[in-house]
């Protein structure tokens, strides 16, 4: 485990063609890390995330991704991810291969990855068309009852990137609030990078809470606001208005590219990104 600035952590752990999971279910989405991947111009990534959300819309629109493993690709409560749709429907800026699951299937695949099992089992994918468009959805028979169940292959990202509230000086990371599949995505990964709101002397006492211990963590990045416009429970709220405004920004290719240039490509880092947004809001 080492403490790194965000650009170094991304440079060290995210390479062209890597399988990368930026997890966090609505809460604690690692926007800052995603923006830095875009700034560094990574290509051919295999992106993994249950709910791609705006950050993957941006990464896909900027041409970072070759493959997307996901289970729900929308702007929650708003509508479509237009950049994802443009890639899937019209191969812009490049074609994207979809490895599409249900939430339950993807959760099982993360759990299998975390437990170092080659596959996960679920009572799922029953009588629908998902297994006809995804050869990674298969079947396994129970050796006791003979029942047939669904099987999905374990997910093992080259790197999982999370955002969390706090790390201590040893690199132990504490998460509270909605945790989604963060823990499983972390344990399933070959490397783990965590951006955090604060680095503290001592994590809050939390007998049975979600902690990622230091020897699972490869890099900790101090990055306040790193989940914005998603949120960090206890630090700042979700900017629902931003999510709503993204619909219009992302609908048009030129407007999307202009926005990304101004806010992500031409800002040095996440503090710059936040400052530019704040200046425009003022």
């Amino acid at each position, binding site marked *: 485990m080492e403490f790194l600035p965000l650009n170094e952590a991304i440079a060290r752990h995210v390479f062209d063609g890597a399988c990368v999971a930026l997890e966090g279910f609505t809460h604690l989405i690692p926007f800052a890390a995603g923006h830095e991947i875009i700034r560094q111009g990574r290509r051919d990534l295999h992106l993994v995330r249950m709910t791609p959300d705006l950050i993957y819309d941006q990464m896909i629109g900027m041409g970072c991704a070759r493959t997307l493993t996901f289970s729900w690709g*929308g702007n929650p409560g708003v509508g*479509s991810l237009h950049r994802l749709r443009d890639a899937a*429907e019209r191969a812009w800026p490049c074609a994207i291969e979809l490895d599409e699951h249900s*939430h339950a299937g993807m959760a*099982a695949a993360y759990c299998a990855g975390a437990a170092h099992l080659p596959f996960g089992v679920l*009572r799922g994918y029953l009588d629908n*068309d998902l297994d006809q468009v995804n050869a990674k959805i298969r079947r396994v028979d129970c050796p006791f009852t003979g029942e047939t169940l669904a099987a999905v292959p374990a997910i093992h990202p080259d790197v999982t990137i999370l955002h969390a509230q706090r790390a201590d000086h040893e690199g132990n990371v504490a998460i509270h609030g*909605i945790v989604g599949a963060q823990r499983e995505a972390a344990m399933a990964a070959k490397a783990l990078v965590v951006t955090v709101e604060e680095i503290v002397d001592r994590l809050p006492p939390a007998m049975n809470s979600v902690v990622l211990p230091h020897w699972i963590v490869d890099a900790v990045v101090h990055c306040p606001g790193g989940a914005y416009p998603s949120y960090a429970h206890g630090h700042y709220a*979700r900017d629902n208005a931003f999510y709503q405004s993204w619909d219009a920004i992302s609908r048009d290719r030129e407007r999307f590219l202009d926005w990304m240039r101004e806010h992500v490509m031409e800002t040095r880092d996440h503090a710059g990104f936040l400052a530019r947004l704040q200046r425009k809001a003022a």
Partner: protein
Amino acid sequence: MSDATRDEWMTVTAARMLWDRCVCFVGIGLPSAACNLARLTHAPGVVLIYESGTIGTRPDVLPLSIGDGELAETAAFVVPLPEVFSHYLQGGRVDVGFLGAAQVDRHGNLNSTVIGRYEQPGTRLPGAGGAPEIAAHAKQTFVMLKASPRSLVPQLDFRTTAGYLEGGGARKRSRASGGGPRAVITDYGVLTPHPQTDELQLSALFEEATIEEARAATGWPLALADKVDLIAAPTVAELASLRALHARTREAHSRPIAMPGGA
């Protein structure tokens, strides 16, 4: 004559279907409004589970996303997402799954994946999310969607979520443990499956709607159930609750967020 909008009729009708202390897996949008309206009116003990892992949540305002902080703050507790699906849903601990969809066919199967061919989509929709397994495991499912010949279709472009399959008891012979879609709540009334054929039929109509309107908004020849109930207009109390909820929600969502940190 009620001044309620059709959205309000739908939401109130759906809310009335929930009972106190039932355990409900809530989809976002109209289902979320309906479930919370039930909680704020006749079913204060309803247990709302959102797939983000918030269990027994009692939000004061409606969440925009399925994982807003409001849901975690007002939850009895929060579990990791895989546990929601394995221990609660697959574990058989959910009474009602409340879903939306882009398309429903005459046997209650749902499409939320794609319009057109999967490989060359006309419109790429968000995808499955929790729906396939919610519909498989919840003891019963309610579906809410606005009716039109493009949403209530004879044939799905893609079957994301199994309802009654090809009908005629096919679901009962399948491996699904839950009972399937017991009601589709539209903006003209409620469709329920025929006991033998499983075909969705009109079984209840909003007082202010007509059978002609219903048929025009349905993509297959809509049959009437043996008995078609009339659904009474939202009461003053129901409307007041729902409108107050929406007003609180609008106010909360328009409140500017204090941006974190910055330069």
